[in-house]
């Protein structure tokens, strides 16, 4: 698997983990200029924006460490565009999902971090 494929694979794993929890997937890879969001889901009126990080090994730091302030701004910008001014009446949350792989293509574990920006 090349890098792109690894990321795509991780996003699929993450989406599955969240839909298992009762979320409905709305969009994948929502991209605007200056912002992008990997997964957008919904549950009981609550909108969740998710950044997925896939790691083949942990030698280069954990997944959360790579969500920098710049990345945070990009996510919020994209979320604002997606909500289109309707942010005020929605309960908005930001999650991060870390997918750790072993031997190239088996999932070692999946971690969901809720409310990463608060």
């Amino acid at each position, binding site marked *: 698997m090349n890098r792109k494929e690894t990321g795509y694979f991780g996003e699929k794993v993450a989406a599955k983990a969240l839909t298992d929890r009762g979320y409905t997937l709305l969009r994948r890879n929502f991209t605007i200029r200056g912002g992008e969001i990997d997964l957008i889901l919904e549950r009981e009126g609550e909108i969740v924006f998710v950044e997925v990080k896939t790691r083949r090994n942990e030698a280069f730091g954990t997944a959360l460490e790579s969500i920098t302030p710049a990345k945070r701004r990009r996510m919020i910008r994209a979320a604002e565009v997606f909500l289109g001014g309707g942010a*005020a009446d*929605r309960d908005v949350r*930001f999650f991060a999902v870390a997918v750790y792989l072993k031997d190239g293509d088996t999932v070692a574990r999946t971690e969901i971090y809720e409310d990463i*920006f*608060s």
Partner: protein
Amino acid sequence: MLAKVRTVSLYGLESRIVTVETDISNGIPCFDIVGLPEAAVRESRERVKAALKNSGFAFPAKRIVVNLAPADLKKNGTGFDLPVAVSLLAATGQLSADRVGENDFFIGELSLDGSVTAVNGVLPMVGGVCESYGEDAAGLRLFLPKDNGKEAAFDGRGRVYGVSSLRELAEALAADALPEPVRVGEEELAFDTAVSDGLVDMKEIKGQSQIKRGLEIAAAGGHNVLLIGVPGSGKTLLARSFPTILPPLTRSEALEVTALHSLAGELGGESLVRRRPFRSPHHTASPVSLTGGGVVPKPGEISLAGHGVLFLDEIVEFPKNVLQVLRQPLEDKVIHIARASGSCSFPADFQLIAACNPCPCGFYGDPERECTCTQQQVRRYFNKLGGPLLDRIDLHMNVSRVSYGELHDEETGAPPAESSETIRRRVAAAREIQRRRYRELPIDCNAGLDRRFIASFCGLNREASAVMERVFQRLDLSARGHDRVLKVARTIADLAGEKDIRSEHILEAVRYRSLDRIV
């Protein structure tokens, strides 16, 4: 949900009531503080967040906006942590909002573990709030850090509750089971007469009986003093003994001193200042360190020396601009500070004790060593002080070195030196006489007499006025020098418990004008 909690913000000594409004709504999660928060207040977000989580409360992933009203006033200090946390608890329903009312005030810094730590300036904050409530102050509930409890209770109005942690406060408020308010006992308000912290009891000083007498007069009349003497003559020691003969602080004076020390963060673990301050800034001090100032105005040395002593050792070594800033506070007993963020005033009601050498080489007038300075150098040396400053100093004294005999007075059979306590009693009696005499006037001691009042309070009988005339001509006194002699004579008469100034009082007063003979 919206919640409102009240707290206090300080600018200088002035306090303003601030309402912390917290609104929690849906939307992209954030935690913002608006209403001109300065750096320390903005940082309170991180402390509040951690303190809530570590106290077992939930921190909502919602859109949180905290407004500090009035929004045009700059907010400083760490005391906002506690009110912000309490309003967050109320806004999220973790604390029922009806538990916190209009008459509840919260001040305190939060530690990350949720404990409440002390902040500076609690006494002026509490004083300001109670002042604005007037008669209704008794109904106030003031929630403050436990370590500031005594200090705040010193004010005497309002109910003060010492808080040690956020959790404890929230539980007590929820259960409506507050502990007893903090009280201070009478004995805790008592004046501390212990001679410590580098102060010296007068009985420890050998010889120098004339100088001690001069200091007694200065203490009794509130006069400023200049000690002139060769190196090693004991000027510093004498200055350090001066606060020990000053009368006890009154309650209102102690409140003012404590408020200023609290604001400057110089209470040093004590809740009340119960002794007269003694400040001795070094001659490398900057004008701002003396006057006070800074972006967040803090009192300087002259304010911290209020109702006590400002000792300027080697006063001639102080830069001229530093000495010049003393002029206004010496005159008005207050210092006005103008800063970009606004102006404020601090009281600066101190007594000045200055010390210097008699000439640049230090040995002018010394019986043993010869002075190498020219007369001109000596004059230039004192000119550095400047007339206006010298004008505010009523007593100048020449301090000479003690002789071998005086150092060993036990063997000579001379009476032992008086203790500071004995002298303090006389000083207090003389102050009481002045207080009664000037009851109706804006002054409280003889040093405050100006031209208008000298005529009415320093009248001389025929004999005394003849002496005064002779002295005036012999010493070639200026008009100002004349007034100075009269004021000091008034104090000497008060110390003696006499109603009128007599000739011997004038003759003694003249002895403390030694500088008039040099320059």
